[in-house]
């Protein structure tokens, strides 16, 4: 790390418009609604329900990412797999796919004339317009964030530590549980935060799969089109505020007492 020099200040000046682009809109949005309007908005049962739904469904998706994505991330970090490059590409796909297309793709699968859709509907699983559908969409868009974060966590644990555990008599699974997991669970919390944040922010894919039950972003869009900017701002502010509190809490949890530095 070096002190700022002349070039440093020049570079900062060049980047300044971007910093303003990122900060000014958010500042102006959060400062425009009056306290009364914010209070009135949070008293609206529909708003509270939509925000609660957004957060709970996003956490569900992150939970599924944790359960099924952790082993996948471990495989990608550690093992030789045929077609591993392809698998990594597949996991990064959701970042590259336009959001409405994600929704359309998931609906394509769920149609009654599609064999899988047929099967799903036979066992009573509905995608269109249901919480199940929303969770599918949120998992789809959030997964790369979870897996990439956790994979980099596994990458940061030297393989030598796992080998050392093996040489001391522990099996592969025991080694994962007693050595790898304790050294990476903080990355998993971070991955859950990233995945949840991405899921809460999703709109384009959700609105295709389920306009109702309404998530917070859909409600913000609806209020905007129906009543204009002024009536959508307070919900946006509340959604951001509540998500922010949630993430800070999760972060605190992961920074709780631990006796070693890494």
């Amino acid at each position, binding site marked *: 790390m070096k002190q700022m020099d002349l070039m440093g200040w020049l570079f900062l000046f060049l980047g300044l418009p971007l910093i303003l682009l990122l900060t000014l809109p958010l500042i102006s949005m959060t400062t425009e609604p009056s306290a009364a309007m914010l209070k009135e908005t949070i008293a609206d049962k529909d708003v509270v329900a939509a925000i609660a739904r957004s957060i709970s469904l996003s956490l569900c998706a992150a939970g599924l990412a944790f359960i099924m994505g952790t082993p996948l991330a471990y495989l990608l970090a550690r093992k030789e797999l045929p077609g591993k490059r392809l698998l990594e590409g597949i996991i990064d796909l959701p970042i590259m796919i336009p959001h409405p297309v994600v929704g359309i793709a998931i609906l394509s699968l769920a149609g009654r004339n599609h064999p899988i859709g047929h099967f799903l509907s036979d066992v009573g699983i509905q995608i269109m317009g249901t919480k199940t559908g929303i969770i599918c969409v949120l998992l789809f868009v959030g997964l790369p964030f979870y897996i990439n974060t956790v994979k980099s966590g596994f990458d940061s644990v*030297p393989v*030598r*530590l796992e*080998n*050392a*555990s*093996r*040489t*001391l*008599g*522990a*099996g592969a699974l*025991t080694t994962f549980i*007693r*050595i790898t997991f*304790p*050294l990476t669970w903080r990355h998993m919390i971070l991955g859950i935060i990233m995945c949840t944040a991405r899921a809460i922010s999703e709109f384009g894919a959700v609105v295709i799969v389920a306009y109702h039950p309404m998530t917070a972003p859909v409600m913000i869009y609806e209020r905007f089109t129906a009543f204009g900017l002024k009536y959508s701002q307070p919900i946006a502010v509340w959604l951001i505020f509540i998500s922010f509190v949630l993430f800070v809490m999760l972060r605190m949890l992961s920074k709780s007492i*631990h*006796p*070693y*530095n*890494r």
Partner: protein
Amino acid sequence: MISLHHINLHLPDFSLTDIHLQVHRHDFFALIGPTGSGKSLLLEGIMGIMPFTSGILLSDGRDITRFPVEKRNLALVYQDFALFPHLNVFKNTLYGTTFHNISKKEAGQRFTYLVSALGLEKIVHRYPHNLSGGEKQRVALARSLILNPQVLLLDEPLSALDPVFHDEARQLLKKVHKELRMTIIMVSHNFDEVLYLANRGAIIKGGRIMHQGDILSIFEKPDSRFTANFVGMKNIMPYHLNGSSLQITGTRLEIIPHCPPDPAHQYMGIRPENILFHIPGNPVCKNHFTGKIKDIASCGVFLRVQLETQGVMFEAVWPAAHIKQFRLETGKTAAFGFPSVAVHTF
């Protein structure tokens, strides 16, 4: 104890080829070679971390070639010690005991013994990031030794330590070997270290064993230019036989060997410390010359002297005392010689 027969290990960019090794009980066996020679890979192969492609690995006569790592009852201490950062010294040391048939009581006894033997009393509750290199090494040793492994494998045990701690660490390893009567296989690229610690060893280069046997015999009778260079032999020159003496190729200089060389040999070498300064009045060596001093360079208490005679350069290591006493300096001439037993051919 440990024996390897026809061992091969193929990786995309490196191979171990047809390795045979015999490590006896209570050996301190050194695998010696330059960086990239495959010596650490061989260690990982013996441990089972990198499975051998073919060949047989016997431990006490039992074929363990296909055993998983954790069933081999060998212990590997990594170069960087690989302590578990989230466990303190106490938990690191006891980690392996839960996976073996070791009773709580037995584990406790062994722990108490090792803590005092390795001097860990004051650091039992510390975490690895608060330990010095030497302390880490002792914890890593304790963690392995508590399991009573049949063989202890050490990967470059000194190279991660500050040079200041080398002496101490060497003595510790010697103590572990002697007092616990361990069988040890060590990887090293430093021949001084090996001379101090090991009794037997093998020279490895490009994934092949070049030479194997007693450390002293490797040191004194290297059998190839590579090994000769590696153990610090100098004055390596090609020769051809002229009657019973060795004539240095391209010159008229003749050297008298102790006994007739193997006809297959082409090179001779002499350790620089075996080239003696001829102190006036002392009896003369069989090979004696008068040469011009071309360079004198300090390397600690000793001086490295380059001597030229009949177009051949000799390198000798002489005590600084001689240089002072006889006022030797670059450009002067000096009489020197070496006994015929000091002449090695290969």
